[in-house]
């Protein structure tokens, strides 16, 4: 299918991207420590943080993934929408408190602190890469699929464009920019 780019849509997209890049650069100047990068200095209000979590939850992967699974697998797909919520319960009741007590930012950090083993390092790294890959592929495909009808660009350009913007946001200011953007 061939899409024609709407100048209005392009203008909104460019304005949005510029605003996002400016915000990330602004937060990057304030991010000078690991606490600033991983936890935004601990200054984010719980309500704002909750909205950011909800925003992450309602991502392209969730919307398109769950809708797609229901479309292709019917009721079996619906089960996934319940299943991945259960992960938050595990994080809240089992993981959050001990990790905060350990004073670590990531699960790998916490494991390293507890066991200090190269095997654990390697397993955590491989597991992180596999999970990230499985999460990012549908996310990027979703982003590319949205950019094509909106801006008339080829799918791969949308993937590269959105991927580059996301990398910039995360790499510059970490938690602060991912929360507010």
């Amino acid at each position, binding site marked *: 299918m061939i899409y024609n780019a709407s100048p209005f849509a392009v203008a909104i997209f460019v304005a949005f991207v510029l605003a996002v890049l400016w915000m990330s650069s602004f937060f990057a100047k304030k991010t000078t420590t690991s606490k600033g990068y991983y936890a935004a200095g601990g200054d984010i209000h719980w309500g704002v943080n909750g909205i950011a979590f909800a925003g992450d939850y309602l991502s392209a992967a969730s919307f398109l993934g769950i809708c797609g699974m229901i479309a292709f697998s019917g009721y079996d797909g*619906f089960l996934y929408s319940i299943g991945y*919520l259960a992960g*938050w*319960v595990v994080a809240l009741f089992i993981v959050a*408190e*001990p990790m905060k*007590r350990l004073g670590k930012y990531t699960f790998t950090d916490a494991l390293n602190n507890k066991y200090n083993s190269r095997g654990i390092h390697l397993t955590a790294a491989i597991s992180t890469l596999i999970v990230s890959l499985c999460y990012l592929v549908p996310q990027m495909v979703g982003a590319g699929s949205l950019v094509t009808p909106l801006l008339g660009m080829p799918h791969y350009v949308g993937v590269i464009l959105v991927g580059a913007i996301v990398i910039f946001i995360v790499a510059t200011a970490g938690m602060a920019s991912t929360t507010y953007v």
Partner: protein
Amino acid sequence: MGGHGPSTDWGEDKAIGFKTTLGLWLFLLYVLVYIGFIWINVASPETMEVKVFAGQNLAVVYGFGLIALAFVMGIIYDILCTNKEDELNEKEDSDK
């Protein structure tokens, strides 16, 4: 490898035992309710078609019920843990 400093600068927390136990019990409760959902889906999927509330079938009611339950349990956990922290750690501070 240098690593980073602690992410949180907490003093001694007397409520940690309570919070850990409460978290495990709430988690166990949620797991049991969740297993019920999965069990019905596997053992008797047709049961999920039964209309149970406001014209909605059991699948929708139970599924959204699980989401609501997680939300409610999260709030309960937060309130109980905060109260316990205030109670025990305040008592500790006043004893000094």
